[in-house]
């Protein structure tokens, strides 16, 4: 029996979809059978971040309303050998097209076939969020080091507890170590102190994220990306491995790039 993990945040634009795409891809790279569910009905985006937008025939609502069988709606990622799939959101319906009970039932069926079921939650705290968490065994909260995102993360932690989804874990996204060093950005300890939840990982700000979503190739497939390494580490921790936090020293200066080019860097 697999595990259902919801990736949520409250606030929009903090990197839920990017996180979901990369953790799913990383878990598949590590040998797991993975399915990603885009629960953002009406505003689907996980398909474009994964580069699978041209392969959609059926969607989540088609499955829950019985228009097609579950297997027909799962899009296979051809970069993997039958280990990574996407269940896309409907684009023309709204969030009330699916009920929390239907989502919980869907998750139950999927975790019988997959090691990990990752759900990309919509922003907000309304029905879309309630749908996304309904079948989840575990919740990951994505935040950025900004006051608004951390505030919304705190609200989400409260709502998860109210729904008896206990022990959510935190992913701090887009951390800029140069700003942290200057004291112009909250650091990891500040956020952990405020939110008082377990830290699962920290993803540094990385220009490669934009490039990879331009191309529809998750950044974990790029061995040179620092964010990619961070996502691979988080995937390992999800599997229960004990992986220390990576060093977040900036390595994007010209000198560092020259070093990496000549193979002197790690």
């Amino acid at each position: 029996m697999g595990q259902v993990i919801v990736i949520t945040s409250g606030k929009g634009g903090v990197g839920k979809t990017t996180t979901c795409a990369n953790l799913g891809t990383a878990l598949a790279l590590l040998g797991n059978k993975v399915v990603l569910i885009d629960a953002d009905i009406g505003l689907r985006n996980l398909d474009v971040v994964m580069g699978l937008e041209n392969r959609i025939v059926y969607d989540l609502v088609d499955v829950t309303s019985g228009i097609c069988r579950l297997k027909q709606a799962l899009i296979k990622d051809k970069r993997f050998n039958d280990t990574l799939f996407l269940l896309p959101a409907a684009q023309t319906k709204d969030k009330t097209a699916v009920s929390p009970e239907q989502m919980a039932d869907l998750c139950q069926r999927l975790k019988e076939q997959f090691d990990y079921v990752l759900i990309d939650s919509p922003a907000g705290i309304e029905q879309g969020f309630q749908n996304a968490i309904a079948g989840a065994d575990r919740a990951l909260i994505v935040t950025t080091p900004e006051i608004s995102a951390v505030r919304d993360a705190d609200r989400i932690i409260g709502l998860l507890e109210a729904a008896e989804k206990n022990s959510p874990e935190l992913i701090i996204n887009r951390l800029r170590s140069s700003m942290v060093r200057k004291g112009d950005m909250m650091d990891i300890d500040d956020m952990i102190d405020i939110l008082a939840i377990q830290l699962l990982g920290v993803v540094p700000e990385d220009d490669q994220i934009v490039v990879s979503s331009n191309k529809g190739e998750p950044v974990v497939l790029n061995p040179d990306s620092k964010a990619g390494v961070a996502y691979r580490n988080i995937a390992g921790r999800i599997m229960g491995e004990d992986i220390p936090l990576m060093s977040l020293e900036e390595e994007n200066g010209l000198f560092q790039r020259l070093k990496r080019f000549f193979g002197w860097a790690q």
Partner: protein
Amino acid sequence: MLEVLSRVFGKENAASKEIAKERLRLVLVHDRATVSPRFLELIKEEIVEVIANYMEIDEERMEVSLNNMDDAVALVASIPVRKVKRVARPTG
């Protein structure tokens, strides 16, 4: 050499925005037309049904898509024909 220089200066991905624009353009054609790929699949099935009366086609390689043409959206079908039937007459 140019490639080496651009790698050193971190410009190895100068063209990814072009890929993004093209992908975005296609996705938006579908979104704005509120045409789901399933809808296209249905159109495709019906086209196949009609054409099958007249010719044998390669359904595997057949493609139906919506494309942008200047200011309009075009339905473009590419239908490889295996052979034309001798008696081309609709049934019924």
